[in-house]
């Protein structure tokens, strides 16, 4: 088995795929993000409660549910795990950090990366899987920006 495939499906990613964090529907949540990829049919929904309304608001309850590949499911799980309990401003920074890291953006990244983020380094060898790794994070970033910069 080739090493880059092992790296793509790191143990961390496999673990998040098998036992995703807060993998449940929470109907009636204040915000619902739809992370859909029309090309491949991946569909995740991210549930947020309560509604954050400024930079200091805390993301208290996050969960997600849906269908997708191991990479998109694990990345959404890591996102939920990483952002719970963070202020929207800090969550936004984490989104930037994750997106820059998986995209191999050389301008990265002031603070050290969590192990959960580093687990996605295998995506660098599979550019066609970048959309899987970033699916939910891009939706989250758009949502957080609408909270922290409501006038933009």
């Amino acid at each position, binding site marked *: *088995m*080739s090493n*880059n*495939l092992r790296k*793509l*499906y790191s143990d961390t990613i496999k673990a998040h795929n098998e036992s995703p964090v807060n993998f449940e529907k929470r109907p009636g949540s204040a915000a619902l993000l739809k992370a859909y990829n029309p*090309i*491949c*049919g*991946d*569909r995740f929904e991210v549930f947020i409660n309560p509604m954050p309304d400024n930079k200091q608001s805390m993301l208290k309850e996050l969960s997600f549910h849906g*269908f*997708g*590949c*191991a*990479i*998109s*499911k694990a990345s959404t799980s890591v996102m939920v795990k990483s952002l719970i309990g963070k202020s929207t401003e800090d969550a936004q920074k984490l989104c930037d950090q994750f997106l820059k890291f998986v995209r191999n953006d050389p301008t990265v990244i002031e603070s050290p990366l969590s192990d959960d983020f580093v687990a996605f380094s295998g995506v660098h060898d*599979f550019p*066609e*899987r970048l959309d*899987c790794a970033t699916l939910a994070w891009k939706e989250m970033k758009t949502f957080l920006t609408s909270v922290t910069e409501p006038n933009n």
Partner: protein
Amino acid sequence: MSFNPRSIKALFPIFSHHPELVYLDNAATSQKPASVIQAMTAFYEKENANIHRGLYSLSTNATGHYEEVRKKVASLIGSTDSDSIVFTKGATESISIVARGFIRSHLNTGDNIVISGMEHHANLIPWQQICKEKGAFLKIIPVDASGNLDLSNLDSLLNTRTRLLAMTHISNVLGTINPIEEIISRAHVKNIPVLMDAAQSAGHYPIDINPFDADFIVFSAHKMFGPLGTGVLYSKKSYRNQIEPLHYGGGAIKNVEYANTEFLDYPHNLEAGTPNISGVIGLGAAIDFIESLDKKATVDHTNELTIYFKEKVKSLTHITLLGNPQKSGSIVSFQAKDIHPHDVASFLANADIAVRAGHHCAQPLLESMGVPAVVRISFAIYNTKEDLERTIEALVDVKKFWS
């Protein structure tokens, strides 16, 4: 077997650049033989000029070459009338011409259009959108769990308000070969015109207008060993002067004044602007290539591969085929237990096996069959049994990798 896929494979340069490649995404686009690539290169090197315009030999020759291909396409579908053929940029554009340039103006509130439940988005969205716009109904011929059309209610679906029946000859997901002859004649009994999407069949299976008496036939060059960006619309004579162009411009006119334009007749009125001349020439070379093959042997070969693959997969308990149509072309879709199609496809890609994963531009079909996505493999004449053995082996290994 007289047919030798290895010597066919040698005609396709991509495989000398990628000797390890097992290419099983032919339903998305086929590879191109050297003769097609060379024909296009030769056009640009030796013949490049615009058509229908210049009074010099290069332009005259280019025009002749382009119009020659119109004859070849007509004869590919058994038509003696080369003026039946419009060159488009692909099957998608061809369908949209019929939808927006013809059917739309005949569609009234309460009318309906009938399609099958296994259409590619390209043969669904155009009809859905004009139906919405006009307050008409889009009616669907259902697909059963095996992937066959359920035709039991066809005669009630087709009624006096039906303006068109549009359906695919071969499903791009299930591989189903639909009984299109029978369906066309049942529609014609009620004077309903039929559009046949031959994107998956043209060049691989006979699509002769006798017996396939479709009123419109559409297909793309790139799925039949030809170049990207070139396609075909065939229309029966009775509809030709009713189809309005989607684009206006040069090359499609008889006379232009500031206040008025007199257009050329079909097919030229639908080919405004400089067309994809090298693409059309490549399509001509693709037809020459197809005509040089023993047609029965090629169909037998891809059928044999399909049957072989389905048989082998039966012994893999973690693989479930999507449907099992009565008559099937060389397309097979499947799921692997607890492994997402994308993860299967990446695993296969890592073994140099190119397949497609996703919903294959047939989202409603997959939803109706209760699956969000599948892996699809599709065979062509250059595929070999060794290709399939490597694929089967990888499908065994993918289970080990994920367990």
